[in-house]
């Protein structure tokens, strides 16, 4: 049997590299694959005998020998305990994978593996080198229009419309750009696609380049994704050698060069005009729109920008037809969407589902709900531009319009699940800390507005909130939304507005009662020792940096509230659960 180790970033961080090395040392012929999306079960090792025979999960270096023996002999009794539990198989069974169709299945570093999985057949079909009639650029755009594919980076703008605008723009020199500057904290599907299936991105981009008439293309990747860059570099090199990239692709007159540009760490560069500035070697500050990039983009030439996940759908649509894609989803949102399920979720990872499923289906049906037996409080969608959706709205369908109505957005697909230990005011503070730091400073509303929002939220979480603070926040939010130049500023108030809308009681508790209902805000916590549980071990007194705990050996201790600095060291130290946090 063939052994295949899942080696995406998550798998490697969980120890897949060590497992691979240990297996190779035993003489096994070890193959690699990308990320199957079940990050919570990594490292994952698959055994193939033609088809997949067994999926082994949480495999450690020390398991290498028995895995090797099982693969050699075909007798799996020695690895029974490593086999994926039946309930976890549901995680995959409930999904519909299009953008992720090859992820965790094929070898991301092999062009042959991609070709064997229908790779580069879509571009061959378009160029008419598969014996068929070929497709004109207009026909390609029409097929994408039929599919209803919309930008998966966040805004959800119809893809065909952008392609058509770039195609019709005046000029001979046009550019195609892939936005792989996945900046939303909590989203990592673009990284997974590039690491696990780089050729599908290359092929999707080739199709787009053909449609809009571009012969130059860039992939703008975050520098924080070193493995993605390495795998994409190899994919580009292999495709060039095979005549799939460069001049005269597949022997036709179509030429396209593809280059990688590494981003240098600036959230605002996810905004398309800022990204273009960055590509040109400047500070990544947004430009005024119009003119839109389709008219004046990179070096003032017509340019089209799409996100990685958008491109990853394109080859599938061309091969299977736009109608097959639009058959899935809702009236206003077609096809599937990838979500990164993280936070306090039982089964975290990447899931791809048809539009129209409800948030509850994804979080509870696939993700298994909240872990550690705690209570679900909210799900954060859309990162710093999105919002927090409460339990009462969990039956909202996944649909651009329906999610927009909640005050959150579909965004790039980050779903961070929170339980009752998460303070929603502190959550808003966290996001505004982020946007205030990442604001490029070009426009006043965003530069100063986000700072003032952050200051006010800090004041509230530190117990210095004042009556009228919530109204002040709302007024600031409105000003920023109306006045900011780009998407970063216009959406920065969303985390504040949605938490006020759904969790106003938490704001009031902080401001009026000087109390944090989730016991998360350090300044608002009080610590006390339950004399009945305290064994008098003195561990907490030794740890206390403020000398606020008094008591003698084997006698209950007590905390002097006037000296306590609320650091929580005592609660973290106590082995008897005697320190109560309120």
């Amino acid at each position, binding site marked *: 049997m063939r052994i295949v180790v899942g080696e995406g970033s998550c798998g490697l961080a969980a120890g897949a590299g060590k497992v691979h090395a240990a297996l190779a040392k035993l003489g096994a012929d070890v193959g690699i694959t990308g990320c199957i999306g079940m990050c919570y079960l990594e490292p994952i090792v698959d055994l193939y005998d033609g088809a997949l025979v067994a999926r082994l999960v949480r495999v450690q270096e020390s398991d290498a020998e028995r895995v090797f023996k099982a693969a050699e002999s075909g007798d799996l009794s020695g690895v029974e305990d490593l086999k994926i539990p039946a309930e976890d198989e549901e995680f995959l069974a409930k999904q519909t994978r299009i953008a992720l169709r090859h992820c965790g299945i094929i070898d991301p570093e092999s062009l042959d593996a991609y070709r064997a999985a229908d790779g580069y057949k879509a571009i061959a079909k378009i160029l008419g080198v598969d014996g068929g009639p070929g497709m004109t650029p207009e026909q390609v755009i029409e097929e994408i229009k039929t599919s209803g594919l919309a930008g998966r980076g966040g805004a959800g703008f119809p893809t065909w419309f952008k392609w058509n605008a770039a195609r019709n723009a005046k000029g001979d020199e046009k550019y195609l750009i892939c936005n792989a500057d996945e900046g939303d904290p909590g989203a990592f599907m673009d990284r997974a696609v590039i690491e696990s299936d780089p050729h599908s991105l290359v092929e999707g981009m080739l199709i787009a380049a053909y449609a809009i008439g571009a012969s130059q293309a860039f992939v703008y990747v975050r520098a924080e994704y070193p493995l993605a860059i390495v795998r994409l570099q190899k994919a580009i090199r292999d495709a060039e050698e095979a005549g799939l990239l460069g001049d005269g692709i597949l022997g036709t007159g179509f030429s396209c060069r593809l280059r990688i540009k590494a981003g240098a760490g600036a959230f605002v560069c996810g905004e398309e005009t800022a990204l273009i500035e960055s590509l040109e070697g400047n500070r990544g500050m947004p430009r005024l729109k119009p003119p839109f990039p389709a008219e004046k983009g990179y070096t003032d030439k017509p340019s089209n920008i799409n996100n990685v996940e958008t491109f990853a759908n394109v080859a599938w649509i061309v091969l299977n037809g736009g109608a097959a894609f639009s058959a899935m989803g809702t009236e206003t949102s077609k096809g599937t969407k990838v979500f990164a399920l993280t*936070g306090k979720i039982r089964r975290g990872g990447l899931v791809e589902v048809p539009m129209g499923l409800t948030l509850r289906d994804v979080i509870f049906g696939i993700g298994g709900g909240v872990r550690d037996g705690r209570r679900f409080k909210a799900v954060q969608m859309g990162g710093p531009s999105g919002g927090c959706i409460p339990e009462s709205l969990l039956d909202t369908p996944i649909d651009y319009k329906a999610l927009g109505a909640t005050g959150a957005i579909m965004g790039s697909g980050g779903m961070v699940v929170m339980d009752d230990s998460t303070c929603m005011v502190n959550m808003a503070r966290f996001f505004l800390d982020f946007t205030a730091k990442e604001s490029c400073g070009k426009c006043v509303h965003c530069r100063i507005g986000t700072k003032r929002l952050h200051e006010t939220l800090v004041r509230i979480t530190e117990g210095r909130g004042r009556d009228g603070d919530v109204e002040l926040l709302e007024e600031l939010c409105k000003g920023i939304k109306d006045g900011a130049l780009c998407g970063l500023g216009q959406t920065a108030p969303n985390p504040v507005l949605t938490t006020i809308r759904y969790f106003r009681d938490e704001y009031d508790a902080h401001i009026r009662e000087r109390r944090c209902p989730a016991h998360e805000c350090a300044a608002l916590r009080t610590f006390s020792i339950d004399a009945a549980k305290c064994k008098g071990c003195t561990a907490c007194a030794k740890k206390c940096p403020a000398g606020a705990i008094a008591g003698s050996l084997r006698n209950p201790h007590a905390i002097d509230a006037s000296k306590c600095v609320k650091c929580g060291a005592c609660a973290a130290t106590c082995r008897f659960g005697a320190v109560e946090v309120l």
Partner: protein
Amino acid sequence: MCKDCAKSDLALLEPVFAEFEGDRHALVTILQRAQEIYGYLPTDVVYRIAERQGVSPAKVLGVATFYSQFRLKPVGKNLILLCKGTACHVNGADSIAAALMDELGIGDGGTTEDGMFSLKEVACLGCCSLSPVMMINETAYGSLTPQKARDIVRKIAAEGASS
């Protein structure tokens, strides 16, 4: 040029200039290469890049200070990138930060006196399912607890001391 500036071996930049000759959009990439060579962006390197790209040193410095990847000061032998993304925040990244700062005696952006460690908080490393996460020299360490983070740093320090 200031008299206190670093005296870097500027010849190392020549292959980079050769590769990007005539490309007036390559400034970010050139700065990335320069940082790979020197570990940070010394002032004399900034001046040389400005001169060769035909732009003012202010423009180069403007770009260098805009992006979080660039450093104008040397970093320690081991660079710790501590993720402060949403998933890590929800799973207790603040307590990991506190533990590391206490262990190393430095703050965000600081370097230990012996030059062994630098600590930098970053927005998101994209390994959210392993949160809280830190990355040291491009290796990711996941599912951290304050104690686990301390142990990892101590182990690296011990290996560094013995090598």
